[in-house]
């Protein structure tokens, strides 16, 4: 068992190094060793897949990795995140080495011989590296060809697919973050927020929150005793995190299109409450300009009337109970503000009038 864990750690190091220029020092023998280790770990995965105890021991070790690497390494995620990852560790290693220009010619040549033995080799392994790599190339061309047909009218649908895939991957990762520490997922998400392009991240979060409840896992996994059955947990984690991060929530509600936000609010009532609260806050920053006859903000970062109106309009087109909640909130704000019927005195009155729901 100890030797297995040692193997494991050594391989994780190798995996981390395989992306760096350090591989310049590697010779064919090093490559061979690295590939052998990867193959061995794959074999371990196959053999011990059903052995709960060994699996859990390995998983625990892996969780240590998260703690060590998270935040400090180039990626918040260690090379191998869980037991499942062992199944593809040789593919991961091979791809990294193939892309790494720093790898010497002799080592590279050896790598190619190992990865692409040619037609005559009997497939002892049903899933050979050669097959996986070829399939990867084929799938990429498939995506490209399908996209060729999509340009023009349906780029929206295509964009949706990209977002949906990222969302599925995000949720898959969230499932793997060790839950032992309650902070685990939140911390992970915070790190992602700091590091990744934020606009895209926000859209992915929205897509993740809108995925159908029984979203299938991107990689097949057998459910075993001991693994958290967290098919729906991923998006709960997201919601929890959003509720704690007011700056993210503000950016979320500001930058995303109104229709998207309405859908999210419809699915997640806790978020809809915060959303409405934010809208109310933003509304209060506007004042009425008598000369121009419109509501404007004093500073540039204040949300303009048009945007506010657009978001409320979208919310009022949502199905109940969201629609009813929104109207009730607007009415209550209008009442608290003095219950004016005339324009220009209370923003709530004006909003309700503009929405056509004023009484």
């Amino acid at each position, binding site marked *: 068992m100890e030797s297995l864990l040692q193997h494991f750690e050594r391989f994780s190091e190798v995996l981390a190094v395989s992306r760096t220029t350090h591989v310049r020092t590697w010779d064919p023998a090093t490559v061979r060793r690295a590939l052998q280790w990867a193959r061995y770990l794959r074999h371990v995965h196959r053999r011990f897949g059903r052995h709960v105890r060994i699996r859990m021991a390995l998983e625990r070790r892996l969780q240590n990795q998260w703690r060590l690497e998270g935040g400090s390494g180039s*990626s*918040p*995620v260690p*090379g191998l995140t869980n037991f499942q990852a062992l199944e*593809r560790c040789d*593919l*991961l290693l091979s*791809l990294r080495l*193939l*892309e790494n*220009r720093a790898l010497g*010619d*002799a080592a*590279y*040549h050896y790598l*190619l*011989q190992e990865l*692409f033995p*040619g*037609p005559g080799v009997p497939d002892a392994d049903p899933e050979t590296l*050669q*097959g*996986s*790599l*070829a399939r*990867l*190339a*084929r*799938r*990429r*061309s*498939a*995506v*490209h*060809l*399908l996209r*060729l*047909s999509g340009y023009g*009218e*349906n780029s929206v*649908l*295509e964009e*949706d*697919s990209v977002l*949906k*895939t*990222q969302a*599925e*991957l*995000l949720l898959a*990762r969230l499932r793997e973050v060790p839950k032992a520490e309650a902070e685990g997922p939140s911390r992970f998400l915070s790190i*992602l927020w700091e590091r*990744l*392009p934020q*606009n*895209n*991240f926000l859209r*992915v979060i929205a897509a993740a929150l809108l995925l159908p409840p029984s979203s299938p896992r*991107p*990689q097949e996994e057998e459910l075993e005793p001991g693994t958290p059955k967290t098919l729906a947990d991923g998006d709960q984690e997201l919601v929890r995190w959003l509720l704690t991060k007011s700056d993210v929530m503000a950016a979320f509600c500001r930058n995303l299109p109104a229709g998207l936000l309405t859908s999210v609010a419809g699915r997640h009532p806790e978020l809809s409450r915060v959303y409405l609260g934010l809208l109310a806050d933003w509304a209060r920053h506007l004042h009425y300009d008598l000369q121009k006859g419109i509501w404007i903000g004093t500073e540039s970062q204040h949300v303009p009337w048009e945007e506010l109106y657009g978001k409320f309009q979208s919310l009022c087109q949502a199905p109940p109970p969201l629609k009813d909640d929104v109207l009730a909130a607007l009415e209550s704000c209008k009442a608290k503000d003095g219950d004016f019927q005339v324009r220009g005195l209370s923003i709530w009155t004006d909003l309700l009038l503009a929405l056509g729901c004023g009484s």
Partner: protein
Amino acid sequence: MAQDSVGFSSDYQFWMQKLSLWDQASTLETQKDTCLHLPRFQEFLRQMYEVLKEMDSNMIIERFPTIGQLLAKTCWNPYILAFDESQKILLWCLCCLINKEPQNSEELKLNSWTRGLLSHVLSAFKFDTKEVGLFIQGLGYAPADYYSGLLKNMVLSLVSELRENHLNGFNTQRRMAPEKIRFLSRVCVPLVTLPDIQPLVEALLTYHGHEPQEVLWPEFFDAVNEAFLLKKISLPTSAVICLWLRHLPSLEKATLHLFEKLISSERNFLRRIECFLKDSLLPEAACYPAIFRIVDEMFRYALLETDGAPEVLAAIQVFTWCFVEALEKQNKQLKFTLKTYFPYASPSLVMVLLQHPKDIPQKLWHQPLKHISEMLREIVEDQTHGSYGGPFECWFLFIHFGGWADIAAEQLVMSEAEPPEALLWLLAFSHSPRDRSQQRAQTMVEVKAVLSHLKKLLRSPTLSARDLQAAAAESQDRDLRPPSCQQLIRHLLLNFLLWAPGGHAIAREVITLMAPTDELSHEIAGFLDQTLYRWDRLCLEAPRSRKLARELLAELHAHIQ
């Protein structure tokens, strides 16, 4: 070897030109051309790999100075990379160019360039925006994870668009344009054998638009059909039927493919024929009259070409069994009148033929037999019934349900009574449809004589092979009988052996006497196999007869082998 390399060189030139052509313009024409050539190009790549792997990279450059261009153009062509195993073979070829120990700057450059291409093949068509790439990397995922998920989602969204399209009918806003659907079908041609694409293929096949003409590309149907026949793709039956209904050449190819299988399989194994037939999905598809008519036509053609070969007859019979079975299962969903399947036949005749003997008590079997015989006779002998086709059409219809003829023979042998005229006629007709009435009458007389002799033997306590031989040769010189009549009499004798109490003891001896040649052994084996198959279908209990038949069949097979 010299010839090979000359051939290869000219191939090389040919493909070099083709690739340049495909490279320059990505028009409809070039795409079409590319798709048509994909399988051949893959073969060429294979050959090239065989040539390259024997040489080192310097030799390669010397021998094929333009190989860099060839490989680069290939790498940049998404259709080629998407097809079957081409990407794998291309990778092998590129590996051959890598130099283990580059000595000079030229070799270094070549290595670097080749590495770039290899990298490109594996990470081709980077379309991701930078943000997406950073996101995936940030999550610690590899492109492999992302692309398999992305492909699945794209396929799902295209499929739902196609389905919605179908449901939304006249809601023109949501409709997918026909050009886009056609483009999708074109793009699927190289991708047909990729499992991830299967839902899209299925959705395209079952898509029914509102355009008057076929919107899918014909090469798409070809590609799907090929892949289906070679078992490289698995599709639900309904999708395959859609394919055949929309594209006639595919149906014809599928039927020919079946015929080839039937010819090359061992003779005399009806159970195996049944497996092949069911596997091919043709009987089920034949529930659609259009498909049935075409397959039937091809069977008819095969029958005429082989001059009534027994294998073809057997195949037609089994096909009809399977077809009727499938039709019964369909029952509620498809309701076509019999006339649509057999337009040239009398409907009442078809109805009687379709009856399953299992549904009728055995002692009443003579009734439908008589009925069939009378109806057929009426059509055949009365020239004015032109609308129901001549004797051949009648006969062709009848042999679909050839089991009836075999039942008639059995009945004649087993019963003690005087053989009914109708049954004699039926037997004579089924073995020899082209006889004139005089010839047929003659046959009937001969058969009657043999039968009466056999009946006497039925009651005799001790039988000998010689007795049986005498029965067969009775009334006329055996050799003057036409071959179809001889065959008929042989079948009667075999029936007798199987059913008569004393038949078992002398069976082997009789058969040895009856079958001096291999051809005749085959015929007898065929008869036994067909009989056993029929008994299975009718759930006939006859343990002694079965046992004997099985043993004889096994012995004959051993002998023929």
